[in-house]
């Protein structure tokens, strides 16, 4: 088994844990943390693929994903704080206006 495959398996496990947390927790900040865990899984995959092909494109793309993740963290937290100001709770279930 080549060197990069265990890293990709680990990336899949991290993505799965993040997805389970995102779907089962109802706290907005915990859901946000779970998206960060999923990001880590995806980044591991990118770097492992770059390692396997022996070029720099994996690392370059990983850098851009890091930038986008930092951006997403800033905006996401601003939105969470805004939602908290409107309803006074972090419960995602309190935002169900569009449910039929």
């Amino acid at each position, binding site marked *: 088994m*080549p*060197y*990069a*495959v*265990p*890293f990709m*398996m*680990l990336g*899949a*496990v*991290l993505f*799965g*844990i993040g*997805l*389970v*947390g995102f*779907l*089962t927790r*109802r*706290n907005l*900040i*915990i859901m*946000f*943390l779970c998206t*960060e*865990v999923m990001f*880590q899984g995806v980044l*591991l995959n990118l*770097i*492992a693929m*770059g*390692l*396997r*092909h*022996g*070029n720099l494109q994996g*690392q*370059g793309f*990983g*850098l*851009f994903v*890091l*930038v*986008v*993740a*930092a*951006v997403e*963290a*800033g*905006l996401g*937290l*601003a*939105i*969470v*704080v*805004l939602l*908290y*100001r409107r309803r006074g709770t*972090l419960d*995602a279930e309190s935002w169900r206006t569009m449910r039929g």
Partner: protein
Amino acid sequence: MNTPAWLEPLMFYLFAGVALLSALGIVLCGNIVRSALCLLGTLGGVAGLYFLMFANLLAVIQLIVYAGGTLVLIIFGVMLTSKSPWVRFAARRGEIVASCAVVAALFVSLCKILTDVDWSAGATGSAQVVPVRDIGAVLLQDYLVPFEAASVLLLAVLIGAAYLARPQPAERTSAP
């Protein structure tokens, strides 16, 4: 430098274990502050794995940007929003079972893909540490347009986050 052959698998399992246990801690922990701290373990473990994959620059950037910047931001968010860190909003049992089933199916199919692929095709042999100079050259030659677009994106987000977090009109009129 000569490193013993058992060291690399040991480091892999160590970092992977730290990352996985912390990720589980984020999902299962009842306290928001502890969940946020568990994220530090995941980020650190994954950064160690980057070192094992010869991506030293990315590992350092991960430690600085994520563990240094984003995590502090998240903890500020927790402090700004939490009345009690122990508040737990329960999901229904059916939702938990359904999401676990979906994720298990996804994981099994991903593992099947990973084990079925013929990895010997098109593989290049020697993995080694890349000098930072090469990464800089790639960023400023091959990826110049995305690089500049990232700076515009950062500026837009700076303005957008300040706009979103500004004092609300109702708060402004109530202030003296």
